[in-house]
């Protein structure tokens, strides 16, 4: 899967939880889930669960702890996909 494709899928996953829709216009690796997209912290768990379902991977608690930016999520997804 290309980086572009991965980011596109990730963008679709987070969109329902985004409270600052303008933040989606500049969605890239540096986008911060909490500060740029204003995703409620309780919804971070939904992002994690949706990522697990969409990519058919399991995200352990240590990996979840780091999933605060798009770049973090991308790295974790790639790592878990490689380990499948």
């Amino acid at each position: 899967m290309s980086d572009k494709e991965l980011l596109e899928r990730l963008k679709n996953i987070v969109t329902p939880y985004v409270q600052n829709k303008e933040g989606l216009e500049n969605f890239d690796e540096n986008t911060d889930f909490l500060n740029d997209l204003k995703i409620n912290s309780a919804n971070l768990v939904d992002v994690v669960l949706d990522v697990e379902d969409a990519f058919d991977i399991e995200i352990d608690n240590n990996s979840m702890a780091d999933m605060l930016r798009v770049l973090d999520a991308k790295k974790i997804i790639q790592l878990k996909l490689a380990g499948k």
Partner: protein
Amino acid sequence: MIGNDLVEFYTAALQSNWQRRGFLEKLFSETEQSLILNSEFPQQKLWLLWAMKEASYKAHQRRFNLPRSFNPRQFTCEIIQIENNSVSGKVKIQDFSYHTQSDLGEKYLHCIATLFRQQKIVQKISSNSTQLKLEFILAVSAFKKIEIEKIHLKKGPDFIPYLSSDGLAIDCDFSLSHHGNFSAFVLSLTPC
């Protein structure tokens, strides 16, 4: 050190489907999950435990200048006493622990986490966030004896808010919270 968290029930019900598979497991220990599931009001109990974790996370992060982390399961909650709508509790993270005091309102719940049990604080909850910010600055002004116009609320590199005056950070222990229609501040009056 101090932290606080506010949950508006209406907004929480709109934003989160707590019954989806994996939701409780990712956030709560087995003991906490059974507290929630065996409660007469599971959603209220869920958001109470969540707010205890969030408020303690904020206090802990500020205390040790920690980088951000989404690790709610590392914070374990214990409910000590429930009296009317006031709940005192304790939250542990590694070898550290925080006292929590939560108020259950009709529309929202608010939790404050402190390092010491009897910490002197000022707090305020409001549905008008602009007014609340002003009252917060007023409270800081009265406590720190700094003119209101000189106090500026800023965000640090790790997104933690701080106060500055004349270009210098004000040594001040506080926490802000916002959810749905409500905002809250807590300001510690105990010297940090």
